[in-house]
């Protein structure tokens, strides 16, 4: 993985309708405007182009939101005593978040539609394949004050220092941390208006899912699976969906994606 890199200089046209299941080109190691250089996590199995530039940027920046219901498949995530499973609830939340985002005019790409469990890299790849997209991963915690919601952005990562303009896949989030913080603070602000007791600003954590995502990326975590009645969580879904959609809409004008290849966001 160490040598696999995300090419920032790509000027390839990638349709925003691409999904995580699309086959990607193997890494070329060079940046050519008409040929997508690709990062290939896990030895090229689930590789994906990651470039913040291109078609979407030229059409005004942010248009796509990649929505990631965490866990799934054999990984249920957090489990409550009442049989509540994080993997199931976030999938239900995603339906409402998706609807709210689409009402705001965003195109939504989901990393999973059913009870499967794509790898961390595959989930990141579905965002890295987009241009001018943001990434939102949804979680339900085991702890924390009930009926609150927290937004996390990734902890500081080592600066990108590749003279070839390549971002190592392992640190794909590094050049986007500032944008992620801005996006996270906006979403957190709307969440806090809805859910009293939530923090005022996005927090920082080493969230694995965010690290390999080459886009403004946040994790939204709701408290918690320990509710006695699942309906308590279900009632939060519209508010969470609205906050994420409004946050993305507020973030859109500030997400200025450079049109010139080679510039970092």
């Amino acid at each position, binding site marked *: 993985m160490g040598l696999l890199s995300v090419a920032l200089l790509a000027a390839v046209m990638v349709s925003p309708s691409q999904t995580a299941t699309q086959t990607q080109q193997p890494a070329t190691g060079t940046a050519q405007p008409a040929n997508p250089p690709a990062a290939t996590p896990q030895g090229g199995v689930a590789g994906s182009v990651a470039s913040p530039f291109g078609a979407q940027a030229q059409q005004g920046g942010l248009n796509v939101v990649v929505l990631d219901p965490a866990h799934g498949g054999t990984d249920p995530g957090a489990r409550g005593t009442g049989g509540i499973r*994080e993997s199931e609830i976030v999938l239900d939340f995603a339906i409402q978040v998706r609807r709210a985002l689409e009402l705001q005019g965003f195109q939504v790409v989901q990393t999973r539609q059913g009870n499967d469990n794509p790898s961390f890299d595959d989930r990141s790849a579905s965002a890295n394949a987009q241009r001018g997209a943001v990434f939102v991963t949804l979680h339900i915690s085991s702890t924390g004050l009930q009926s609150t919601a*927290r937004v996390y952005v990734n902890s500081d990562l080592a600066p990108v220092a590749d003279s070839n303009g390549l971002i190592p896949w392992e640190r794909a989030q590094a050049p986007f941390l500032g944008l992620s913080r801005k996006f996270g603070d906006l979403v957190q602000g709307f969440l806090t208006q809805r859910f009293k007791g939530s923090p005022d600003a996005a927090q920082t954590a080493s969230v694995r899912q965010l690290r390999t995502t080459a886009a403004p990326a946040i994790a939204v975590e709701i408290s918690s699976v320990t509710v006695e009645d699942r309906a308590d969580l279900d009632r939060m879904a519209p508010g969470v969906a609205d906050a994420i959609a409004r946050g993305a809409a507020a973030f859109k004008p500030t997400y200025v994606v450079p049109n010139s290849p080679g510039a970092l966001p």
Partner: protein
Amino acid sequence: MTPRWKYWLIGGLVIAVIAAAIYFPILRRRVKRAARLQQQSEEQARRELTQPIAINPGDPRVKTKLFWALDTIDSTLVPVTVELPLSNDPVLRSKQVLNTLLAGPVDAELRTLPPDALLLAFYLLPDGTAIADFSEALATSIPSGIVSEQLAVNSITRTLEANVPQVQRLKILIHGQEVETLAGHLDLTGTFVVNTQPALAPVKPASTSTPGADKLAQPERKP
């Protein structure tokens, strides 16, 4: 007329079959038990070899800050100051403070690490990178979630930061292996910053220590 020896042979075979029918289930249980013991032996051997480092009463008593949770719902850590006899050797000292952290506070509800988690090994490289190897319980028994996993790791790093200045960054292993996440969320593939300053000053004993009993100080918030 059937020869008599054939009766003896048939009788002997019947007795052998009955004996086998009785003995085979016993044998099967013994084989299963032996297999279970073999599976547990590695973990048991590790546990026996990595008994918590005993506090040496001869060591200087030091004010030790241990970071536990503020309350059961908040994700805030607060330092609790305890006077402990700690070694001046950074590796022994790290083991002592981490084992005390794992043992948990007086109020078990405020603990940040699972009660069955163990520190299996601790190493300190010359560049200040520490490697802490915990038992699988750290990953399997911790409540899953970003907030709870971060609270656990932060309690470890901040406890080391406060008590072992030689440790600059920390790598966490689970049962000797690098794992991708602690319990599905927090990234364990890298290292965590502990002390940003290359502080290699010798650790001084507390000048106000009171021999005889450990005293708990009022929690304080780190700014």
